[in-house]
């Protein structure tokens, strides 16, 4: 899809949104701030009156409350209206900065239908709009990579006329079914997506589109950016005839209902005819709709267990969200005392504080990091390698201490794994346990990984951000049930590794074998870990490699 097509699509989205903002929920526009985006926003502003909402808006701005300045002036309560009470279209710049908390509140307001959002997302890969909002905003656009010349200025068509037509618009009766089938086919599980598509199509028709064009625009704007499984071409479909691409899990059930299946196939064929040919190419580079990574990170940041560094206190309404910084408040009030006293000589209060003086204290919430070492102390690693591993861990410990990280230590050898040290900051203890760690015996790799799994789980619950460092040669010979045997042990270890991967913690696998082993590499792939081969490395090299990965 060329740049000008993308721009046309953006214009279509904007117009559809302007026609029916309440039911569409909004637009999610990924674009860097620049002339292209400005042009789009200008077109929007010309058509609808949008208020700006800060991505860091607090409750007072959202829900309103007593307007203190006006209250003091009038000496009777004056209430300020919040953004949510006013409703309407809100333009949110830097939408990737919206916290999950704010997203939750906006989500409630969006569900009520009185508010709609235009989220201008300038985020890079790891910063995206919270998924609670992603799902609720109908259209997704990306303006990245559009040249200024491809994007002529435009103004929206007659919105009021389209709005008048909206109630009378009739889509083809089968469109609803087709969109539902298509969404399922593209692997979109949320039912909001096909609903959004329907609404966009209707708005496009109110703007004068033919039904086919309206549906195509709707699919491009709502379903295509959300799709998880790319649509399959005819040939691929033939090849995989026995596994319906949309519902591979339900195969057995579907065979029982072959009649229904053929119905569904017919539906699907009809729906696929709606798919634009160049859909794959047309999919703008949007972060995946699931937003798992972003969301879990948000959780980790939120549940920070340590109140971090103090930030400068900020002038603001005293609310339950922040503690009052008394000193700053008094300091602000001090110079005004003579004047205020003169104005209100009868006031019995010794210090005259007004709401505008109030400063609130802010701190930065951070999560502590915990580095979990899982050390293979079996016979195969023992002797030279174990000593090196111990040395490396000691160096890392010192660095962890300097960074105020926590460490935990797991060793596995013989028949099982042992958590030698739960997450701690005590370096002395760790060193002592480490020094006393004996080597030798079998390699119960799976048991070691299981122990790591539970330590990681625990750390998460305490609001810490865990990183796992595994030192092993990857050769397992003790299965999870304690029985010896390479095949079973290896299979158990791989299965456990996949379970561990679900924890989504950064993971480093240090291959301690003298020669790099395919087994360790296989394990690191199952873990989604960074693989660091350490043949003949000394403790210091090993430590610097890990430190480099951690940074």
């Amino acid at each position, binding site marked *: 899809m060329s740049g000008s097509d993308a721009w046309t699509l953006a214009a279509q989205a904007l117009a559809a949104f302007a026609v029916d903002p309440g039911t569409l929920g909004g637009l999610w526009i990924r674009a860097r701030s620049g002339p292209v985006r400005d042009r789009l926003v200008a077109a929007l502003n010309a058509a609808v009156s949008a208020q700006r909402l800060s991505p860091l808006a607090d409750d007072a701005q959202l829900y309103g409350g007593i307007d203190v300045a006006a209250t003091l002036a009038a000496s009777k309560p004056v209430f300020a209206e919040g953004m949510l009470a006013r409703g309407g279209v809100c333009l949110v710049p830097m939408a990737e900065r919206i916290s999950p908390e704010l997203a939750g509140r906006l989500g*409630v307001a969006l569900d009520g239908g009185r508010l709609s959002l235009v989220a201008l997302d300038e985020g890079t890969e790891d910063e995206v709009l919270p998924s*609670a909002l992603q799902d609720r905003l109908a259209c997704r656009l990306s303006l990245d990579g559009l040249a200024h010349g491809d994007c002529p200025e435009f103004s929206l068509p007659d919105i009021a006329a389209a709005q008048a037509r909206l109630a009378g618009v009739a889509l083809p009766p089968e469109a609803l079914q087709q969109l539902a089938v298509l969404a399922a086919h593209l692997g979109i599980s949320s*039912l909001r997506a096909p609903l959004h598509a329907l609404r966009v199509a209707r708005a496009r028709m109110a703007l004068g589109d033919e039904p086919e064009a309206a549906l195509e625009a709707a699919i491009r704007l709502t379903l295509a950016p959300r799709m998880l499984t790319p649509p399959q071409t005819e040939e691929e479909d033939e090849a995989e005839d026995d596994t319906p691409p949309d519902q591979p899990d339900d195969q057995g059930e579907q065979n029982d209902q072959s009649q229904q299946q053929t119905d569904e196939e017919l539906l699907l064929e009809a729906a696929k005819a709606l798919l634009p040919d160049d859909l794959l190419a047309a999919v703008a580079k949007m972060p995946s709709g699931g937003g798992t990574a972003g969301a879990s990170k948000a*959780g980790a940041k939120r549940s920070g267990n340590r109140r971090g560094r103090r930030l400068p206190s900020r002038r603001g309404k005293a609310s339950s969200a922040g503690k009052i910084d008394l000193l700053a408040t008094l300091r602000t009030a001090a110079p005004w005392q003579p004047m205020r006293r003169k104005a209100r000589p009868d006031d019995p209060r010794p210090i005259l504080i007004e709401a505008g003086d109030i400063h609130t204290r802010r701190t930065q919430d951070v999560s502590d990091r915990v580095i979990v070492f899982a050390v293979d102390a079996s016979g195969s690693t023992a002797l030279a390698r174990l000593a090196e591993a111990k040395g490396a861990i000691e160096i890392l410990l010192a660095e962890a201490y300097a960074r105020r990280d926590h460490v935990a230590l797991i060793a596995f050898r013989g028949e099982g794994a042992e958590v030698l040290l739960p997450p701690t900051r005590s370096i002395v203890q760790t060193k002592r346990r480490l020094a006393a760690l004996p080597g030798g015996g079998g390699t119960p790799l799976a048991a070691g990984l299981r122990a790591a799994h539970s330590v990681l789980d625990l750390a998460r619950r305490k609001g810490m951000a865990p990183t796992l460092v595994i030192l092993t040669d990857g050769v397992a010979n003790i299965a999870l049930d304690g029985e010896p045997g390479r095949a079973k042990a290896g299979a158990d270890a791989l299965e456990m590794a996949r379970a561990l991967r679900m924890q989504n913690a950064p993971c480093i696998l240090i291959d301690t074998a003298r020669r790099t082993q395919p087994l360790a590499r296989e394990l690191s792939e199952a873990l989604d870990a960074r693989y660091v081969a350490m043949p003949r490395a000394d403790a210091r090299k090993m430590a610097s490699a890990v430190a480099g990965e951690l940074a």
Partner: protein
Amino acid sequence: MRHAFPFSAIVGQDEMKRALVLTAIDAGIGGVLVFGDRGTGKSTAVRALAALLPTIRVAEGCPYNCDGQSPKTCPHCSQAKSRKKPKTVDVPTPVIDLPLGATEDRVVGALDVERALTEGKKVFEPGLLARANRGYLYIDEANLLEDHIVDLLLDVAQTGENLVEREGLSVRHDARFVLVGSGNPEEGELRPQLLDRFGLSVDVASPNDLEERISVIKRRDAFDRDPDGFVAEWQGENDALRARILAGRERIGTIATSDDTLRDCARLCIALGSDGLRGELTLLRTARAHAAYTGRDEITLDDLRIVAPSALRHRLRRDPLDDAGSTARVERVIADVLG
């Protein structure tokens, strides 16, 4: 305020609807935890409750929703000048949204700082717990809520009373509500201790059945295009359901519990290895509410079979290697034990 989507018009998600209805019959079952994907109607169902549930009678203007029958115990109504009982009005059952970032102050209530500083008066500003009294408190994305707030909520939900001792204030007021939490398991889980304190838990998923998906979209679309008409169309169904809830409340006190039922409850919980007796008690209460809802005089095996997954699913120990998930495990055990 726009209409809420009618509760009885929600397609599928029977387990979730049943859990909510049963807590409406017997609030003592405890909270409901709804976990599942986005766009599966979690919020829709909870917000639809207010329109479904019978109204409650409250003292006019009371921020604590007290019923006005014993004004002495209510911090607001005990301040009234007249000795007479306060005037009462009928209001919808409160369904209060608890926003994620809510702080402890906002939840339990706190000193009204603004009035303290600007007027020099010490006034208690009631929090969300007061507003949710005798109704429902809904937390979307409960798994993202800070642990200490969740602890506090569960504690108050269990004792039915909110006691605030802070900043020189001492306020005690009723806070009896059903806690409903929802969340997306991809974004983090709740601590097992917390899971256990919710009465029921429900897993919701997007329907796999195409017809069902289509009818969800159809109804939602019909609602969007003509909310008034759609709500009117479903009014009859909602009224019928409300009547069943009221009848269930009447009936629940008369339902007999046989020793066999108690034994079945215990056998189920032992077979599942769920910790503590809370599982058994909840299972029994829920089965009783279900029997009342279906209009029976005693608890049957069917009642147990139907409510057991919701009552027990979240009380199992986690097994990182069992991909089947706790739903499948519970169903397996129910089939083994109850036959």
